């Protein structure tokens, strides 16, 4: 175990990701900032690492709902990654998805959708794409479509995201629960109350076991589920 104050940027970054997942945002931001200072101070700065740390700092602001500040950080990360010679297409696609989520938070759905579609096209062309990255892009495009009332498309995208997450993350992962929550909302809006109720139950069970009852995601999912009428056997209209 590293001594306090002597962690490497990779260790600080990994801790920062865990803090974000646990909704400990101030700690996460401080860890990323320390990692960034170390990377910048090292001889022969690793600009790819700098780009990732700005990406992750933007993620903290996304989780807090500070989308303007987060988008500025994410754009900086993306610009650094691109560099003079162009960055790795898969990493730039993941940066684009992270930025798009922040743009959605600012009401810029058009640019967000373009970035999601561009990332998904990159993933489809590349055999080495990380399935977890693909699932995140599908989840976010699905939620954007659901917000806009494009429910059939949203359902298809979210089903694909959930299937991928079950395979690569496992059945107990909170990121799977997030997508199940989103799919439940889309189903509820389409009138498929029975399926929505079942999805909410599964999502809440996972969130309570993995993140605890007081985590912001658990609270949001529970509030959504409480607005879903009890399963009365209704089915969506045909087509």
């Amino acid at each position, binding site marked *: 175990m590293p001594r306090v104050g002597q962690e490497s940027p990779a260790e600080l*970054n*990994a801790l920062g990701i865990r803090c974000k997942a646990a909704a400990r945002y101030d700690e996460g931001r401080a860890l990323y900032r320390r990692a960034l200072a170390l990377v910048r101070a090292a001889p022969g700065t690793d600009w790819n*690492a700098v780009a990732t740390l700005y990406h992750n700092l933007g993620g903290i602001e996304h989780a807090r709902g500070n989308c303007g500040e987060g988008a500025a950080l994410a754009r900086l990360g993306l610009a650094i990654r691109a560099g003079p010679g162009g960055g790795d297409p898969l990493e730039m696609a993941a940066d684009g998805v992270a930025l798009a989520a922040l743009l959605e938070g600012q009401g810029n759905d058009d640019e967000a959708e373009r970035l999601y579609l561009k990332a998904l096209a990159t993933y489809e062309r590349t055999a080495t794409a990380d399935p977890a990255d693909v699932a995140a892009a599908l989840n976010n495009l699905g939620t954007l479509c659901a917000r806009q009332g494009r429910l059939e498309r949203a359902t298809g995208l979210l089903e694909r995201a959930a299937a991928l997450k079950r395979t690569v993350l496992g059945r107990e992962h909170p990121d799977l629960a997030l997508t199940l929550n989103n799919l439940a909302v889309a189903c509820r809006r389409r009138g498929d109350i029975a399926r929505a109720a079942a999805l909410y139950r599964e999502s809440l069970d996972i969130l309570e076991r993995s993140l605890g009852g007081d985590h912001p995601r658990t609270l949001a999912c529970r509030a959504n589920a409480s607005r879903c009428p009890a399963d009365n056997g209704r089915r969506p209209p045909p087509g």
Partner: protein
Amino acid sequence: MQNPGQNTTVRLRLTEEQRALLRHGTGRDGEEVELRIEELEERIAPRLAANHNETMLIDA
């Protein structure tokens, strides 16, 4: 990072202690290991993981 045109594999000669560990761990014997540059970089300086900004629907 790897430079274009650079040799893409590196051979590392194992010490006696490393060879013993290899035998113990895998049952195989060997004097050298061969790594692609990408594998070596991943060991020496692992890339930092990027988080996902996944969006969550609120059913208001």
